[in-house]
């Protein structure tokens, strides 16, 4: 028995994919081989389920602990972690919930999960220096339209037809759990400001123009293109005010000229 085969068989047992291949490899020693292997399956599923609960506490509160454990179990078997850091586990959970038949009557749930995932990303994102407005000031106006921005890795955009911010607020530890599901769409930027008064994560409400603009920049569009789509979506879009707010939040870490990845701004 090669190590590779053994680990593949045990892995399949632990993830509930194959209960038969691993048992002959294990000494029963007074229990059953399945009982012994089952201890590892339990540890794995329970520890990962706890990790998901820590990342998605509001989703858990919305569906109950018992149902959350059931959904997490199904998710873990289908999407086991692909890296060793548990705080980075669960990025596919919102999409999984969106397609999970038993929660079809909770259409806002996946978007709440998207907000919680963005919060998790913001909290743990790598530290990076922020771009200051002065670094763009030297640019001639005709060039500034061709600039693209790299967003700070803590930045996450969440848009939903449901008032997920209110749902999230109402389901914090001190909340009463009550939110108006007809409260309307919301568009959010989740980020980390790294300021003494805001050390963890921040949730910023965006209007349609701001959200369209940042979405376009996050997708690699130039400043000119992003401004164009934002204005087309929202006549009230105010580029100067939006950029100023971005710089004060440290949203950008780098500016590049379109088409030349090495061409940083002066």
């Amino acid at each position, binding site marked *: 028995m090669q190590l590779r085969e053994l680990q593949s068989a045990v892995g399949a047992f632990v993830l509930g994919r194959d209960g038969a291949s691993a048992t002959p490899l294990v000494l029963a020693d007074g229990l059953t081989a399945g009982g012994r292997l089952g201890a590892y399956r339990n540890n794995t599923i329970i520890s990962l389920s706890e990790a998901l609960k820590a990342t998605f506490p509001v989703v858990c509160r919305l569906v109950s602990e018992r149902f959350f454990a059931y959904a997490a179990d199904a998710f873990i078997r289908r999407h086991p972690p*692909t890296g060793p850091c*548990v705080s980075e586990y669960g990025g596919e959970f919102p999409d999984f919930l969106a397609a999970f038949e038993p929660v079809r009557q909770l259409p806002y749930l996946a978007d709440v999960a998207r907000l919680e995932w963005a919060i998790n990303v913001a*909290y743990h994102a790598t530290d990076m220096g922020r771009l200051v407005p002065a670094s763009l000031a030297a640019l001639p106006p005709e060039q500034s339209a061709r600039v693209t921005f790299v967003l700070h890795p803590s930045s996450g955009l969440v848009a939903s037809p449901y008032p997920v911010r209110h749902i999230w607020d109402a389901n914090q530890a001190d909340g009463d759990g009550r939110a108006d599901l007809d409260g309307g769409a919301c568009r959010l930027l989740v980020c980390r400001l790294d300021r003494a008064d805001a050390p963890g994560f921040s949730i910023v409400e965006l209007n349609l123009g701001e959200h369209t603009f940042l979405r376009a920049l996050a997708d690699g569009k130039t400043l000119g293109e992003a401004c164009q789509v934002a204005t087309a979506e929202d006549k009230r879009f105010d580029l100067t005010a939006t950029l100023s707010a971005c710089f004060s939040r440290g949203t950008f870490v780098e500016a590049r000229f379109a088409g030349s990845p090495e061409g940083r701004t002066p």
Partner: protein
Amino acid sequence: MPTTRTAPYQTAPIPAPAGIGLRFPHHDEIMASRPPVGFLEVHAENYMGGGRLVRDLEALRHDYPISLHCIGLSLGSDGPLDERHLERLSALAERIEPLFVSDHLSWSAVGGAYLNDLLPLPYTEEALAVFARHVEQVQERLRRSILIENPSSYLRFAHSTLSEWDFLAEVVRRTGCGVILDVNNLYVSAKNHDFDVDPYLAAIPAAAVHEIHLAGHTLKHVDGRELRIDDHGSPVIAEVWALYEQANRLFGPTPTLIEWDSNIPPLTELIAEATKVDQIQAAAAPRTSDAAA
């Protein structure tokens, strides 16, 4: 870029008081009160991002030696080590300048999936070669020796040809790595597999034991038989304290850590456990071997 330190870290002597595992629920309190413990140990994988967790750890590093205890190198997995993970560990170690870097005699990753548990190895020559090669790779990358912890286990593989203690001793001999002797794990495994701890303790090269771990475990009944599960969720039991005293006599005063990972108690309770370690070490005879120098 690592932040610039305002002052060099203190290089502490071998810590006399016991250490505690730093866990998220105690972060703020430890930051605010800086309790008198000998060192702090963290799971390295929880500090590989940015933000306040890592900043807190850097701040604490000025007041405590920090031990980076890995749970995700998966040193026993067939196939190559996770290069990105090794890179991130290396960056964290440069930033924190840890007292120790450690991981377990176990594996977690298979076919690209991480099982988030410490699975036992078959104790074979093949697994020994894989494990020792991986330890060497980590040591070369970090340019320091690492510590390997004996695992708690719930099963043994039928085709093992070596005992766990001979396997661990041979890893030490081949790689020059050190050992974390987890006394609770030793007790749990000895009970689960009905072996005697004395040959185990005798097989571990005394000079390689740089740290001792203590924790609580839980007793379950599986298939009508007792199975001890290492959940780090309760106080250290009397039998494990007795085994710790035995280890203390064998290996001399050794940096000792209290780990508590589930049902995490108030910080004062954790520190009270650590105080028991200090009392046992103080009561024990001083180390007589020349290794103490």
